[in-house]
């Protein structure tokens, strides 16, 4: 009984080690698998992962419209006060007041790229962009206004 266990231990040990060596050997003989990006040289053809989180951006469509309703869910979700939303009230043609964003302030210098604001957003107005070349000479340039000038919320987004 003991001997059987001993032999199966040795067998399992060897097979699992060989499994590991097969994987690394596969990588060694398939240079196509190499994932190194030779960064400053291949800036134009850089391939980044989809889940790469570089900064928060607000996509606008061709009519300069975004989908942010100004609900401030992202502002509340942010753990370190990176987002500040200034809202205003627009008067609709029917004479009703409607809440809209005036300025979406994003402090890149405070952001930890935790993705909580994107998860909190009910209308998918913001997303993470794969930009990482953020260095500037002045700190104030890191405080960004995400909604473009003159933009407005898309029709039908509440």
């Amino acid at each position, binding site marked *: 009984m003991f001997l059987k266990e001993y032999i199966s231990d040795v067998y399992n040990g060897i097979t699992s080690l060989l499994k*590991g060596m097969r994987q690394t050997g596969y*990588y060694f003989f398939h240079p196509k698998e190499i994932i190194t990006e030779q960064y400053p040289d291949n800036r134009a053809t850089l391939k980044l992962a989809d889940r790469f989180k570089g900064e928060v951006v607000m996509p606008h469509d061709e009519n300069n419209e975004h989908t942010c309703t100004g609900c401030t869910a992202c502002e509340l979700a942010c753990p370190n006060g990176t987002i500040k939303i200034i809202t205003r009230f627009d008067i609709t043609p029917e004479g009703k007041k409607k809440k809209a964003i005036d300025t979406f302030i994003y402090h890149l210098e405070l952001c930890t790229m935790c993705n909580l604001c994107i998860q909190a957003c009910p209308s998918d107005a913001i997303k993470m962009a794969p930009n990482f070349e953020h260095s500037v000479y002045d700190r104030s340039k890191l405080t960004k206004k995400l909604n473009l000038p003159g933009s407005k919320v898309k029709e039908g987004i509440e």
Partner: protein
Amino acid sequence: MSHEKAINDLKIKSSMFSLEGITSSLHQWLYATLSPTFALLAECVIVILLAIALFAALGLVLVLMERKVAAHIQIRLGPNRVGPGGMFQTVADTLKLIMKEGLTPDKADKFLFNLAPFIVMIVAMLLLAPIAFAKGFQIWDINIGVLYLSAISSLSVIGILMAGWASNNKYSLLGAMRSGAQIVSYELSAGLAILSIVVLSGSLQISDIIAAQENGWWLFKGHIPVIISFVIFIIAVTAETNRAPFDLAEAESELTAGFHTEYSGMRFALFFLAEYINIFIVCAIGATLFLGGWMPLHIGHWEGFNHIMDYIPSSIWFFGKTIFLIFLIMWFRWTFPRLRVDQLLNLEWKYLLPISMLNLILVTIIAIFGWHF
């Protein structure tokens, strides 16, 4: 007939340019022009120069090879900036190490601290003596070659213990003690694995062991028991050279750098170089014992195939096999995680040693009844 004559002519021609021809003609020339004492001295000087040149070349090539192999196994590119494809990376590193200050800690035992890297290096140099690099190209064909190798290789632990103790640093001492426990235990199974080949070829002399493999390498001739002892040999020598997965003596995540924590500059480079020289030497021993040293690959009675294999120079066979084994060792250095101390000793005393003892008995039975090919 004429075909055979042509082959013989070619053999004579190729032997003129072989290393054996060069060494024997140099030997004759030296003894003809100088008195025997000076001729011997001149030969010693030539051997020393060749050994140092080999060490320097090995250090540069193997470190680069390790970095490249490691990179490709980890899906990286590795050094690729200095020279074409990163070829001169290790040259640049060596230049840097030569320029660096060699610091000796205040409370270190200065004499032992400075002596230790040289001991490790000298052991590596001594191990070079009985290795046959090519046909007839051997420094010293001692009749107890294999015994000499296993005896000298265990001396390197003294250098490591010396370095660890003299550094006056707890990490160094811990690393050195681990290394001592490891080398002393793994020597047993390495020795038993070597013994199985000694039993089969019936000689301790390296040239005899190689000659016994003329009609096929022991790895192929000796059935499964020799394959088992080959595997055990590779595991044991990896442990003896303090390489991952047995690099507990250095264990950078636990002991900063183990026994060479306090070393810097050229003395660190000597330890680093000695590691790679030792890898080369143990792989050369493995190639000699199990893969036939400089013997070309011969398969049974395939005369044509065997003749073609004979045209490849013996030095290329030897270095090819050695590099292959080095690649094997690097392969699992970059695949397996490091063992804990208790796992390390378990592996040796509970698995490798009993298996290799049983295996030695099997090999002996095979040798007695002549069941090998």
